[in-house]
């Protein structure tokens, strides 16, 4: 009888609604909702309507939510996970961990927000690392890597911006770095930093060569993370107060190492693509020797890469 009732409801409800308008959606009886939700053949729209109505009606919806987080419909899974988290907080940890593999973008996006919102501690770190390793949604995986797995951050202040330095600075020399023959490697999984690719001694002989310019122009139709390395010979030492690297354009975000030391980042998101920036390298720069510059670039849309030249700026 229940099966017949379910089939009947599934078949007749849409026709009924068309005839009487949306008032029919307003309040379905709970038993009808249960039947619609249970029947996997029900139109997903009606299952969602049934689910949200049950959620509103149930005083203690834990069982409903336990099923929801495993539902085949990502819309229901996501709402289930959200409700679990808002009701249980850190107590929802097992459900969050179980969702790490979820292929759906919206579930993955919710998951990382929940992970970030967890109290600082082992659970949070475990969940973030798990997302960083296992999430099937690249964007989410990258974010997890950045939070849990990418420790590079440095406030790089130019001498000119140092309020304690009240002398005029005059540029004494500007040396343009080569525009050609940089080494280049794509990093779609955002994990190459674990392999020490920014270290001076890293062997980049198998990397491709690339020139300055958007990487799309060099055949890489790609949005994501990529690494650039350049070995260059520095000029002989001159009198100076500051040495800076001047990037005329990196599309969009850049993290920079010089001779294996993290220098700083240019992290304005999409807006940073055409904004030049300076990074102070006075301490890390090796005069009269070979220097190794490594740049990690992330591009999220349209063209990407180091698309304008880079120079050494020497100030006195």
């Amino acid at each position, binding site marked *: 009888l229940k099966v017949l009732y379910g089939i009947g409801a599934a078949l007749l*409800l*849409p*026709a009924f*609604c*068309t005839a009487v*308008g*949306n*008032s*029919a*959606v*307003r309040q379905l009886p709970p038993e009808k909702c249960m039947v619609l939700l249970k029947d996997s053949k029900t139109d997903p*729209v009606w299952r*969602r*309507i049934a*689910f*949200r109505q049950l*959620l*509103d009606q149930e005083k203690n919806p834990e069982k409903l939510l336990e099923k929801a987080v495993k539902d085949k419909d*990502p*819309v*229901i899974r*996501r*709402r289930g*996970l*959200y409700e679990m*988290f*808002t009701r249980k907080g850190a107590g929802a940890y097992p459900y969050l961990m179980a969702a790490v593999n979820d292929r*759906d*973008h*919206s579930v993955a*996006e*919710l998951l990382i*927000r*929940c992970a970030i*919102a967890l109290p600082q501690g082992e659970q949070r770190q475990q969940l973030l690392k798990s997302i960083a390793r296992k999430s099937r949604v690249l964007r989410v995986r990258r*974010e997890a890597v950045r939070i849990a797995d990418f420790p590079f951050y440095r406030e790089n202040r130019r001498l000119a911006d140092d309020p304690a330095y009240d002398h005029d600075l005059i540029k004494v020399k500007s040396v343009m770095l080569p525009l050609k023959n940089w080494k280049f490697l794509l990093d779609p999984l955002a994990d190459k930093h674990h392999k020490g690719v920014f270290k001076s001694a890293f062997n980049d002989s198998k990397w491709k060569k690339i020139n300055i310019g958007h990487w799309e122009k060099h055949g890489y139709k790609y949005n994501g993370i990529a690494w650039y390395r350049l070995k260059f010979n520095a000029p002989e030492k001159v009198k100076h107060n500051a040495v800076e690297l001047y990037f005329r354009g990196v599309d969009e975000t850049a993290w920079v190492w010089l001779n294996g030391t993290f220098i700083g980042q240019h992290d*304005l*998101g*999409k*807006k940073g693509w055409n904004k030049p920036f300076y990074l102070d390298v006075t301490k890390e720069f090796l005069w009269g020797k070979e220097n190794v510059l490594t740049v990690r670039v992330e591009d999220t849309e349209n063209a990407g890469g180091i698309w304008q030249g880079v120079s050494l700026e020497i100030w006195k």
Partner: protein
Amino acid sequence: MQNMKFLLCALAVAAVSFCHAGLVAECYGRKAFIRGEKNVSLQVEVRKSSKKKISALRVNGTFAGKSFELKFKKIGSCIAKVDIPLETRLIPGWYPLTFTAVDDSGNKIAKSVKIGIAARRHDKMPVLMIGGFKEFERFREIGFTGQMGIREYHSTPSEIFLFDRDKLPSSDEIRKKIGEMTGDLDNYLMENYETLDHFTVELSRLRHRFIRVNHEGTKLPRIMDAADPEVVRQLKETAQRVKKEFPAHPAVIGVRFNTEMRDAVVPSFTGWEQKAYKDFAGVDIPREAKENLPPHYSQIADFPVSRVVPENHPVLKYYRWFWKQGDGWNPLNSALSDIFRKNALPGFFTAFGPGLRVPQLWGSGGNTDIVYHWTYPYPEPLNIGVNNAQIRAMARGNNRQIMNMTQLIAYRNRTAPIGQKTEKTPQWVKEYPVAPYITVAPDLLEIAVWTQLSRQTQGMLFHGSASLIPYEKAMKKRHKGYQYTNSEMQQRLKYLLHNVVKPYGPLLKRIPERPAKIAILESYSSAFFAGRGTWGSAGWIWDTHLMMLWANLAPAVVYEETLIRDGFGDIEVLVMPHCDVLTEKTFNAIRKFQKNGGIIVADHYLVPALTPDIVIEEYIRTRDPRKDKAQLQKAGLELKKALRPFYTPYTDTGDPDLVTWVRSSGDADYLFAVNDKRTFGDYWGMYGKVMEKSVPHNGNVTVSRSAGAVYDLLKKKKLVFSSSGKKTVIPLKFNDNTGKMLLILPEELGSAVLSIPSKVRRGEEMDAEWKIFYRSGKKVSGLLPVGMEVFDSKGVKTDDSTFAVAQNGKCTAKIAVPLNGAKGKWRVKFTDLVSGGSVEKIFQVED
């Protein structure tokens, strides 16, 4: 043209003052007036060449064959300002006015001036070129009713007072310029042409002095600090000066303010904004306030997992303030609008655009009467439908009127990139190989204009004059600026303006939009915290709208503010693309809506505390226009199918290339249908960027109503259709046109009755009343288009002839017989512009 030369000569003569027997007389101000205009006079200044005082003055003369004598006593000033009252109830044309002024010492001055009587003004759809040349006749011939810029883009009344030079002009220079411009405006009035003033800080020295400074202390020279009280004071003072010193002229129908000034605003740290915000909120500007939008929600610590933020979230509150008033532009434009509107001539309007280059919050442009936005009709000519709905949503905040503006130029990189190799190079590329802006493709323009006409607006604006008509000055520099690369576009526009916009303009302005049952939410909180929004031109929200238009789902746009203040109205389905973040009030309103039976359609970005009923997938464009269009059309049809149990659109074609829009008034449904079937043509097609060529197409449109008659308005004939129950099916055939305007009525129109007095005296007005009924004799309900023609006893069509609107089957019009009109039998003819049926009557004109 001959008339114009004569006019210019006359005005030149009038402007020259000459001295005779110790008196100098100079006529200033307007010398052209609208027929029937009341209380008008010619303003004359008389002074003694010896600069001594004048005690009394006698002025006698003749105007239009009638003599007059005026006496002025107790003047006691060096300059006698004399107003010579003018009779305007005359046949339009030029009339000589000659007068002699004699002072108390017997000094005399004689003078002759040409006075213009212009045709009466009637309701119409303003069609304005933003830009334009001195040779305005070329635009008028195409069908424009006016232009912004009397001789060129910035040549407007306000320009005289907005100085962009180190040396301020002298009062004599200003007076001279006012005189010249008033002469130009008189000329416009006589030629039945109009102009839009342009009050813009682009021309003001202020913009170089009061510049914004960003959070790093960097000066931003392009963007003026409009919140600085000194800026506001000076600009208000300038506006008041324009109002005071430039005589109100009926040829100036409105003023536009400060275009493209907000595009690059960021919080300014010159002091004013910080202080104003502290006064407003009691707290300092939050540290996140650096760019024009806050950081992405993922970068904000403690951002709620629900992505539902309270109205008083410090970052939300700051940016809402910043975009509504903090950057200064909305309050400034409101203040300017108030100044220009005060004691303005009837019909004068203030306007602001582009009104959508802001987050989706009410108030763009302040409280100007009109807010508009401009649209590029490629790659999709339906783009203008999206902008229309968006600007309507913006205008709803303070019940403003809207206009749409169509770009007649096309960017090369989006249509036919410079240097891109193609199999066959079109001729225009050989002539203009590196021209950056070219003429928009004719078929796209035509579809765009039809799309605009289908929506209610109070005016049509166009931009790109040098791409519309060949302009020698532009053509000399073929490598830059706007270029004229397609002659066909002009012909298409001309056809539409003359055959659709002119006769049906009064109607098109008035037929209301149908209350929306399905709407797209454009969320400002998502714009703030997730960088969402279309900024009036593109993106996923934009594409969602397009796919719904192709699916004939006829969506409206609502803002979060709409839902909170006005509720959901008739909306049954809310579509929520890119709604990553919502405010608490919006969220609660939507939850309630859904609980009450409303259906939510959303993508996977939707705030997690809401469960969408129907999910749509964001489509990322490939830049293959054929594929993008096909995919979006497919998605639209899928959405329509998913919505079927819950929502039935009022019209459907089952074919995404046949796009409909309905506006309704009483019994009357005005059904607009556009053929959007296109392919790659021989203008841009070889570049593969835009399908710019229309393809003939047929199909049926189904309307959810019963019908007794369907008319094709342009052809003024009945169409074949079938109607049963609440369903009417109309076959549509598009051979050589892209748009149609049909009228669906419950029954056929019957005969009309015209009532007029049998006689009227010269110089008097009479009422003509036209009534039309359904064939059954039943009263018509709704708006109908009507044309009235009046012929004098010599068979000459008079300026009372006009296009109008009949309300509920009735139209009343005034016929004013000039004092010097021909006596005898005059004829008045009314034509219903639906079936073409006409009725006429004779009346006697006598003394």
